[in-house]
């Protein structure tokens, strides 16, 4: 069996500017992989390439052997890649429960007409959506907030809800864009445990962008490093820590050790 995700020489140009180019990556089923790089290195742009927000101007993206280039974001999500955002993007006026239900949207089958005429399929499918969403909230310990508007949750819980929502779309590959941004060490620690837990529970492959080196080095099995839109290194945390190009890219910034 081949890799779950294969990125072959992918890149994108905005006008004359090459934001990312020659990006290669392979993710195997069940791996937890980090994507790091200095500010403006093209990390989020790579995520946007993987999720269909941008269409790559060069190269190929294969997921489960299927080509993803040119698919709209919702189609990418339906084929099994789900994501969170660097700046939280919840449906703030919707309840916590409804936020998760939205992610279940494409798993339900009832049509618009079925809902308008309140056919039996509407009731049965909506019931399943409700039950499954509640289960999810329980797993993430968010069930006590279920009727609260998403915007009223504390910051840390909003991040949690965003991950819960991404998982409710039942992905095989989960992309986390700086999940620990704005969190204190205690919250970061809880987040690391949560990531480890969901990976096991849902048999997931996870790719995460992170600035918190301790987090990346601590939980990722492999790490890719981007700088100026180019992949400059890939390997185990130890290899990355001692890689001359990585040290150069982070010149002035110390590449911290695992327990920093």
């Amino acid at each position: 069996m081949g890799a779950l995700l294969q990125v072959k020489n992918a890149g994108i140009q905005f006008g004359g500017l090459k934001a990312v180019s020659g990006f290669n990556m392979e993710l195997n089923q069940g791996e937890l992989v980090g994507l790091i790089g200095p500010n403006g290195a093209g990390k989020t742009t790579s995520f946007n390439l993987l999720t269909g927000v941008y269409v790559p101007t060069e190269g190929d993206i294969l997921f489960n052997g299927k080509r993803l280039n040119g698919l709209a974001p919702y189609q990418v999500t339906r084929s099994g890649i789900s994501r969170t955002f660097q700046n939280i993007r919840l449906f703030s006026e919707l309840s916590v429960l409804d936020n998760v239900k939205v992610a279940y949207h494409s798993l339900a089958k009832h049509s618009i007409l079925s809902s308008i005429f309140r056919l039996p399929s509407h009731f049965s499918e909506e019931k399943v959506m409700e039950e499954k969403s509640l289960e999810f909230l329980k797993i993430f310990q968010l069930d006590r907030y279920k009727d609260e508007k998403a915007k009223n949750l504390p910051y840390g819980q909003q991040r949690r809800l965003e991950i819960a929502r991404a998982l409710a779309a039942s992905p095989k590959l989960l992309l986390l864009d700086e999940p620990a941004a704005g969190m204190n060490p205690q919250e970061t620690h809880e987040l690391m445990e949560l990531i480890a837990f969901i990976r096991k529970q849902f048999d997931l492959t996870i790719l995460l962008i992170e600035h918190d080196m301790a987090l990346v080095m601590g939980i990722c099995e492999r790490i890719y490093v981007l700088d100026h839109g180019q992949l400059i290194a890939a390997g185990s945390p130890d290899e990355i820590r001692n890689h001359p190009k990585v040290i150069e890219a982070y010149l002035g910034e110390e590449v911290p050790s695992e327990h920093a």
Partner: protein
Amino acid sequence: MEWLQQLINGISLGSIYALIALGYTMVYGIIKLINFAHGDVFMVGAFVGFYAIKGWGLGFFPALLFSMAFCAVFGVLIERIAYKRLRNATRIAALITAIGMSLLIEYGVIYARGAQPEAYPDNVLPSTSFNLFGAQISSQSLFILGVSVGLMIILQFIVHRTKIGKAMRAVSHDMDAARLMGINVDRTISYTFAIGSALAGAAGVIFGVYYTKIEPLMGIIPGLKAFVAAVLGGIGIIPGAMVGGLILGVVESIVSALGFSLWRDAAAFIILILILIFRPSGIFGKNTREKV
């Protein structure tokens, strides 16, 4: 040589659109608001000019200047009363407020003086027509074109060569950064409204002199079309508004000349929709997209 004549008519009409479009584009550039009331400032300018000429017997230029000054103050008042509170409001709230202000001005004027139209006297400007390659060209349309171009040149000078112009450009680029750099943002926005409204007032007087008939709802359609012109040229871009206005005026004249005068108003909106679909940033605009 019917065509040359239509072209000149189109350019005259287009220069009026351009003068109004400048105000739209400047205001949009600086506070991202489609100032629907702008077309009504144009109407008020036309009436002020009318009363100045007919009532006080002023000549064209004094009336033009008076109307511009009046509209500048009027524009700043609108901004101070209604729009200033909207700085942090949603786009929808801002747009609806602008629509509300537009209706308020229109029906306020009707309430104050009635809905009946007025006619500018036809001797405001000397009207001789001469022959150019077989086309009858009136001195009025050339004069109007000259005044419009003159005003645009003055505007370019203000925007690029003066301190207030520099502040305007800075605020439209990044309001928060400009504030941090010590620019008085509120005052800059007021200046923008003043200049934009003065140009609309000038357009109103020119319109009155050229087309004679003015009435309280006259600002709606030219206002919308001037907005189309601003979008066509790339909203927020000053030369874009001028070019957009001229193109729109010429296209409308051509549509009329082809015998489709009832479709003339539709032409502007069709252009608008085509440009929005195929090049929403306009002729001179740069493409920007929401950051994910």
